[in-house]
């Protein structure tokens, strides 16, 4: 199953946007599905469904970035700088694609007819289904460029 299909399948099972994206990259991160679902559980719908703060689909992608560029040693400023650069780049691409990164703002924006058609094709009345699939695609494209995504 493709990662975007995996993420969409998780969304259909009522896992949140952040969980769906993070867990779909389990093959690359090595994080067991249960752990991925656990750690991202509160990052859905902004924070805890508040619709404030960052879109959970993007947060899910940023959790993957952290795992693939692990900054896990003390006083490793190069490691910190590297993961920050990659995280900022993924955010920039998501922002370029949708024109916003905050949950509530994304929900209020007008989206293209193509995006709404995609939501419908994904069996959802909510545009979030598209954010999830697109966050997976944006991250895959980025990781492909980085040589990290087979």
């Amino acid at each position, binding site marked *: 199953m493709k990662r975007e299909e995996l993420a969409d399948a998780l969304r259909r099972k009522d896992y949140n946007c952040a969980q769906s994206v993070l867990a779909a990259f389990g093959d690359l991160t090595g994080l067991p599905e249960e752990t991925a679902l656990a750690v991202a559980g509160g990052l859905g719908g902004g924070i805890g469904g508040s619709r404030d703060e960052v879109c959970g689909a993007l947060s899910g992608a940023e959790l993957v970035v952290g795992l693939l560029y692990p900054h896990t040693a003390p006083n490793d400023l190069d490691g910190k700088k590297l993961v920050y650069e990659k*995280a900022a780049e993924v955010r920039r691409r998501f922002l370029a694609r949708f024109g916003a990164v905050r949950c509530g703002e994304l929900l209020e924006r007008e989206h293209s007819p193509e995006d709404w058609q995609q939501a419908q094709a994904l069996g959802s009345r909510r545009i979030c289904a598209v954010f999830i699939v697109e966050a997976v695609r944006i991250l895959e494209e980025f990781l492909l460029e980085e040589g990290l995504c087979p």
Partner: protein
Amino acid sequence: MNRAELACQYHKEGYNCAQAVAGAFADRTGLELRQVLAVSGGFGGGVGGTHEELCGAVSGGVMVLSLLYPHLDNSDPDSKPALYARAADFRSRFLARFGNTCCGRLLETVPTEEEAAKMGLTKPCDVLIAGAVEIVEEMLAELG
């Protein structure tokens, strides 16, 4: 060393705000410290040091609550709303205490390096990191 001090110690070692908060609870969350630090690595400075978006100390705290009250099984209909309520409550408490949740806005309000030093803190954002840790602990105490 209490958890707030441990979190500030991680921060001093160059870990970001999200890592510092999440790392300080690693013994309770069941994840290896290395995994906790890795997964939260991009959430410092409001996503990749952009200073946009949510303060990493809040992101780290939400990850801790998520690991402690995991939403894993949708056959339990309460699992998702229960975690969401806790995560949103944590965010509200942080907002009430610090007046904001956005990294860049908070940076305008944190003490200067000098003021922080007088408070015994090595970095200005330690105020937010220690605060986030204290709020998580306060919630855990209330929840038993």
